[in-house]
């Protein structure tokens, strides 16, 4: 249908909103609470537009287009309303700009400038609200909240319902649920959907910055499979573009002595997963289905919500823990460095990894294997802070003893990737064992790829057909739960789309963006000569070394235990420094 925006005839389909059509046409309408993956809530009142003949202004995000409608997006009335609503919102948001991660891309700041918002007429009204910290992963700072409710919806969409709105009107506040049957699983989806960084990761960058200056330490960075196709977005590179080369250069420039690729660790995880699958198939008492355990948010979910399924989790450690273990033992020995002086910093698309790194069983001689975890956003911030021109960096290659893994490792960042990698190795191993017949020797298991929340596949194994299921987005696990026993092997990634949609990824993250990141990962897989984890000889050398030295339980396997909930700390906010300076 045709209608007009700012006197220009535009085309749209029935059922589309004004905002959707306008953005498709390149017409800029600002918004804060709108997110294409969430319900339209029309809370922030920033995307207001005027429709000829209508009494009130309407929100572009919620108003469906109609034939012959005449929409005005820049009229003085629209500008005045947007300006005032922005003024009201900005006065809600205690400005802690000095160390704010998203400051370089702060929408509030940009809109304040664009609309010439008067920021001195109203006082910040939430400065004394509390910050709630969940484990060491995520925090919700009430003093910065602009009441858009996106975090609460993101949490509900995960099926967790841990974040709740208490109170009403100007007293309403996002708070953790008091219901003892709910717990935060640290997925960070709240942080990924907060437009103003009130819900955010508990940052580790200040400590990392400090330790980088400590000359007595060997500070090593290791980066996750998925961040190579997402970090570039922060610097204007196309969605899904592989920038692993620039990442290595940037990390070196930031002062890391060594930069390693967690893909190597992913190949170890695959090896352990595949071996365990085959071992369980031989074991009559094994718990079925076997379930992946490399997503720490999923592990937290099982430990709290379904402790009865703990025996089903694989004992494989997650990729960055594997690599950190290799660094602090095998590599340290080779380099002649005291492991105590090695500091491992993981760059992860994830907030839950911050909590995982604190698990006591993932330590060596009382020291955590991974010392610090930075999210993709935190790395982007450090690069921007150091004024490194990321876009134009000369890419480096991985010079380390530990290579950049197989193609199977690259796809760990996408939902179905761990499953596909494990199957690639498992079918190869099983066919080698059975020698005579080839059952299902596929390299690609495309059934388990993509953004669909629940995927499944059947794989012919000697004597039986394996049924596997892949879940992304925690709430989808409930779809599988009633028929769990029908499956042999389940992969669960807490975040929609897998790690490419992880809670630590760049803002914005949407389904459409996730698809491009996923495509980037499968492109890397296709480009690698070695596409099966067990064919990574450097990995096999290390794996053999661990076995020869009887270090499997220190370095390869892990364990889980029932949890009684997430640790919540509430922190009283003081008046922000920013406010004190300007009053």
């Amino acid at each position, binding site marked *: 249908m045709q209608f007009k925006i700012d006197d220009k005839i535009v085309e749209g389909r029935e059922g589309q909103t004004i905002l959707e059509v306008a953005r498709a046409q390149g017409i800029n309408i600002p918004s804060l609470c709108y997110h294409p993956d969430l319900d*339209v*809530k*029309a*809370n*922030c*009142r*920033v995307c*207001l537009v005027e429709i000829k003949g209508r009494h*009130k*202004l309407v929100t572009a995000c*919620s108003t469906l287009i109609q034939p012959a409608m005449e929409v005005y997006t820049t009229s003085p*009335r629209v500008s*005045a*309303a947007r300006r*005032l*609503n922005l003024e*009201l*919102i900005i*006065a*809600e948001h205690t400005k802690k700009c000095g160390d704010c991660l998203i400051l370089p891309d702060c929408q509030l700041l940009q809109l304040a400038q664009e609309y010439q918002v008067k920021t001195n*007429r*109203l006082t910040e*009204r939430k400065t004394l609200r509390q910050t709630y910290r969940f484990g060491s992963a995520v925090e919700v700072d009430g003093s910065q909240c*602009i*009441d858009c409710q996106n975090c609460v919806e993101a949490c509900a969409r995960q099926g967790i319902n841990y974040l709740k*709105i208490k*109170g*009403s*009107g*100007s*007293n*309403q506040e996002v708070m953790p649920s008091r219901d003892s049957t709910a717990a935060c699983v640290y997925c960070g989806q709240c942080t990924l959907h907060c437009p103003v960084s009130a819900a955010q990761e508990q940052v580790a960058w200040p400590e990392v910055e400090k330790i980088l200056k400590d000359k007595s330490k060997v500070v090593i960075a290791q980066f996750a499979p998925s961040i190579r196709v997402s970090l570039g977005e922060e610097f204007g590179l196309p969605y899904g573009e592989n920038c692993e080369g620039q990442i290595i250069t940037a990390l070196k420039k930031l002062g890391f002595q060594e930069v390693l690729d967690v893909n190597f660790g992913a190949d170890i995880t695959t090896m352990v997963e595949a071996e365990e699958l085959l071992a369980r198939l031989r074991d009559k008492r094994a718990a079925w289905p076997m379930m992946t355990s490399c997503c720490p948010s999923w592990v937290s979910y099982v430990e709290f919500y379904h402790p009865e399924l703990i025996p089903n989790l694989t004992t494989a450690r997650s990729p960055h823990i594997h690599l950190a273990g290799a660094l602090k033992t095998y590599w340290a020995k080779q380099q002649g460095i005291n492991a105590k002086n090695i500091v491992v910093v993981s760059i992860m698309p994830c907030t839950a990894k911050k909590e995982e790194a604190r698990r006591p069983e993932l330590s060596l001689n009382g020291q955590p294997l991974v010392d610090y975890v930075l999210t993709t956003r935190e790395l982007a911030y450090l690069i921007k802070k150091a004024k490194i021109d990321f876009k134009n960096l000369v890419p480096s290659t991985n010079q380390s003893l530990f290579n950049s893994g197989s193609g199977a490792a690259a796809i760990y960042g996408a939902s179905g990737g761990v499953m596909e990698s494990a199957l690639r190795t498992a079918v190869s191993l099983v066919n080698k064992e059975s020698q005579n017949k080839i059952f299902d020797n596929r390299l690609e298991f495309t059934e388990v790829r993509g953004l669909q929340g629940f995927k499944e596949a059947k794989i012919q194994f000697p004597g039986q057909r394996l049924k596997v299921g892949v879940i992304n987005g925690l709430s989808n696990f409930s779809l599988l739960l009633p028929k769990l026993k029908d499956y042999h092997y389940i992969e669960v990634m807490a975040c929609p789309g897998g790690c490419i949609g992880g809670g630590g990824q760049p803002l914005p993250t949407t389904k459409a963006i996730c698809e491009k990141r996923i495509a980037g990962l499968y492109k890397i897989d296709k480009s690698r000569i070695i596409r099966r984890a067990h064919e990574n000889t450097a990995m096999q050398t290390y794996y053999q070394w661990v076995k020869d030295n009887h270090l499997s339980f220190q370095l390869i396997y892990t364990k889980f235990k029932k949890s009684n909930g997430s640790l919540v700390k509430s922190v009283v906010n003081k008046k922000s420094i920013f406010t004190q300076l300007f009053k």
Partner: protein
Amino acid sequence: MINSRSIIKKIEAAGLVGRGGASYSTAQKWAVVKAALKNKKSGYIILNGAEGEPGVKKDGYIINHYPAEVIAGLYLADQFLGTAKIKKVYIFLNQEYYKKYSAGLKVILERPKYKFLEAKTEFFVKPERLAYISGEESALLNLIEGKKVEPRLKPPFPAESGLYDQPTLINNTETFYNLSLAVKNKYRDTRFYTIDGAVKHSGVYNLAANLTIEAVLRQTNNWPTSLFFVQAGGAASGEVLNSHQLERPVEGAGSIRVYDLSSTVGKKLFQSWIKFYQEQSCGKCTACREGTYRLAELVSSPTYDDGLFWEIVDNLADSSFCALGSSLPEALRSYVNNLKK
């Protein structure tokens, strides 16, 4: 046996409109719900008797004096929409009305004729807080569903997709009362007026719907002897009129509050209106949540900024999510326009 076509004809002929404030055609609403029910499994009927608007007391009055008519109205709605499809009937009352008058309604419901109706009728008592917004149809649905009390985006309208996404008929107490009269050809185009404030005979009166405010005050022997002004159509959201502007009928909610001109302090009045809205704002949208908070802050501030005050008021009218937010400016602006100019 009641014929649904004859019911709708009688409602149409009586010209019934909603009495909750929006004045929407009752016959039209019923027809929409009935049509929507064709494709849905079940539906709901809600009697909205939880007056949240200050100065309006007629729902309680009607339930107290005419419980049989109110239940008869519910019965008609249930019959008209198809009793097999109507899963539940909610009678939504505030705490006070529930305590005082629900027994009277229950006695009527116990009549043999209403046995099936009684079985599916549930009293739903409004919490003390959010009294005003929970009277808004879609916020009321959220309240019953146990969700955050705030208005929903429309469309879909409750008539098509309301409680638990099923077609839901929501009518005011007065509408159900009027219905029972209309079907018996006894409806005489009257409405209930609540009169309070600086008057001698405050109370609820049932008078012709098209009476002017002046006529209402005179007929009830409430015409003040000293200088005065009124707020008509709700003592929070209603329009302020001076004593020369009363040759017009009451719009919106049927209430008239009379203020003594010489003893009423404008600032206090502003403070009380704004405080009411600030307390009742659900928190959903910026314009209302922040706007009412800032108005409350400003109106009591020693450094009152008149320009900012009216900017916020204009913004409430222009950009709030629901009718609650955009109704406060009516009182504030009309006070200034009709009394101060």
